[in-house]
């Protein structure tokens, strides 16, 4: 009997651990510290039959981070004539093995498309000095490890402006999975954007603790709507479902997510990483690749707002005008979106 109780406790405990692992495993990834590293000047040997591999932490069908990366790798491969392979749903524990597999199979450019694959990439890179590695972020860089980032916080600023300007009282929401530097930069910029348009704007934020739990995200969205949020930034799948059910508006993230709620999704902050991947692939081919941090934002055309699909009318005209002006200022460099990755409660 005593054993049964312990057994029962173990089941609950395992369930709790499983659900919290996601929160812990990615929370440790650090800021893109690599940008401070020095670029090597020595030119690399040009690569003839380039083979690109991309390692993804989630499915290629998530309409989100992993899909953007997968499609960009495919696009880059097509435009430079390289073969592309991918591995999806790779857990942090499996990252090193997967990356090493690709390296030993002769892929000359390996993209570790996650903010938590940095250490694994650095480790494998030491064993394959002739292979070029690109990591989402890493704590340091090496002669053959470069990094890239997703500066979608720049778009989040515009989203915050749109949201607070569309909300009648400035109360807006933001639903996300967990705290990563990228998402925190996104949240802070969203807040700054909201305050830019309405100094009294209130930004509610929720973290649901895992990346793919739409029912939970929907409930988080509904809780925010009940609390008065009228426009939600959908940083995780399911938020838009909540906005539909709670009759609020949403702003999609990373891909044009209007199809998830044609009457609900005002626009989406899109991220197109294919110019970045294509440039890197070309640089590896002609030997001009260097191990710096590659950052393509609004200015470079990688971050932007998707089509409004007829919902422009829901955004007050003066708000829309201000938003477009800001976007132009970010493009010409006269305005810089604040970058803040401090943690929040």
């Amino acid at each position, binding site marked *: *009997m005593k054993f*049964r*109780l312990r057994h*029962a*406790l173990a*089941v*609950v*405990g*395992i*369930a*709790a651990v*499983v*659900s*919290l692992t996601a*929160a812990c495993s990615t*929370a440790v990834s650090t800021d893109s510290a690599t940008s401070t590293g020095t670029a090597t000047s020595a030119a690399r040997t040009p690569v003839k039959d380039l083979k690109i591999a991309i390692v993804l932490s989630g*499915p*290629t*069908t*998530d*309409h989100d981070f992993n*899909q953007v990366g997968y*499609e960009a790798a495919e696009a880059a491969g097509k435009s430079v004539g390289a073969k592309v392979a991918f591995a999806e*749903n790779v857990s942090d524990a499996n990252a090193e093995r997967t990356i090493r597999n690709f390296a030993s199979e002769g892929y000359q450019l390996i993209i570790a498309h996650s903010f938590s694959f940095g250490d694994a990439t650095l480790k494998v890179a030491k064993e394959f000095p002739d292979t070029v590695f690109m990591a989402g972020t890493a704590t340091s860089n090496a002669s053959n490890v470069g990094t890239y980032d997703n500066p979608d916080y720049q778009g989040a600023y515009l989203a915050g402006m749109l949201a607070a300007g569309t909300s009648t009282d400035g109360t807006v929401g933001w639903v996300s999975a967990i*705290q990563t530097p990228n998402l925190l930069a996104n949240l802070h910029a969203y807040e700054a954007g909201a305050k830019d348009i309405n100094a009294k704007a209130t930004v*509610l*934020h*929720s*973290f*649901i*603790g*895992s990346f*793919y*739990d*739409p*029912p*939970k*995200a*929907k*409930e*988080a969205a*509904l*809780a*925010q709507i*009940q*609390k008065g949020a009228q426009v939600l930034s959908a940083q995780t*799948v*399911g938020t838009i*479902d909540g906005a*539909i*059910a709670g009759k609020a508006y949403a702003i999609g993230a990373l891909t044009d997510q209007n*199809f*998830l709620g044609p009457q609900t999704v005002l626009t989406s902050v899109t991220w197109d990483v294919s110019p970045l991947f294509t440039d890197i692939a070309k640089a590896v081919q002609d030997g001009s690749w260097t191990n710096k941090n590659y950052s393509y934002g609004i200015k470079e055309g990688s971050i932007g707002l998707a089509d409004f699909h007829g919902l422009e009318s829901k955004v007050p005209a003066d708000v829309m005008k201000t938003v477009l002006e800001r976007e132009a200022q970010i493009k010409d460099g006269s305005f810089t979106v604040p970058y803040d990755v401090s943690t*929040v*409660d």
Partner: protein
Amino acid sequence: MDILNWIVSASGEGFFSATMRLAVPLLLAAIGAIYAERAGAINVGLEGMMLSSALSAALVASSTGSTTTGLLAGVVTGVGVAALLAIFTVLLPADPVVVGISLNLLAVGGTSFIFRVAVGQAGTTSTTPVIEASPIPGLDQIPILGPLLFDQSYLVYIALLGVVVTWLVLKYTGWGLLIRSAGEHPAAVDSLGLSVNRTRFLALLVSGGFAGLGGAFLSLVASNQFVENMTAGRGYIAMAILILGQRSPWGVLIASLIFGAGDAFQLRAQLDNTGIPFQFLLMIPYVLTIVTLAVFGRKLIDPAALGKHFRRGHR
């Protein structure tokens, strides 16, 4: 009386209705598992059954445009996966935990594969019709109980009906007695010329059907789409709920409501600038479940023959 005001306020009602919505998928899976475990068959495959059903419900509902058909597809899928589990663990003497876990892993890969074959790389079942809430006029105005029980989708009413029916079946029907006997003293069942294994097989199928409803709830009510691995461990939580509820329908109802309330509470507490880290708030439903189990779980008694393979003529 702040509390009383809060209970009837919009945010109070929101809390109670969210509690039920968060509890129902767990409740459905756990109710079904009562049949299986009381009959002596362990069902570790709840997660896989829910995930498979979430997919088939979404696919069928979006292709036929009918949520009812989708729901039925979810139930059939749940029963199908349960049949697989039953073949291996009831008819063949395979370890139920090993087979259950294997089925869960199979479901993760299998559903992802079928989903992509069905809708393509960039595809989605976002056109999945949604089952809307259908409040019961009058009853939905009762404080607490109204938003909790009577302002929900019909799937919630089915779940509540499932609690009552399961209680009646187990307590007052011959089949209920047969189920309990198969779990407590299979040799006695056998000596009466009744089949232990047929009872267990059927009980597992019922469990699969309920888990199927729970899975369909996830893709047809709790969100408007199927997303790979969207059960997010709910099948395992349901197993914990089953044990916490002491394998009784009413216990399981209360246990799942405790978990749902914890979850609904933490989602709201995150918005209140309490200064408590969100990671801690996310733990609340789990901590609540562990604490409740530690306090009230002392008289937990498993069915005597739980997980023991039965072969006629063997001891």
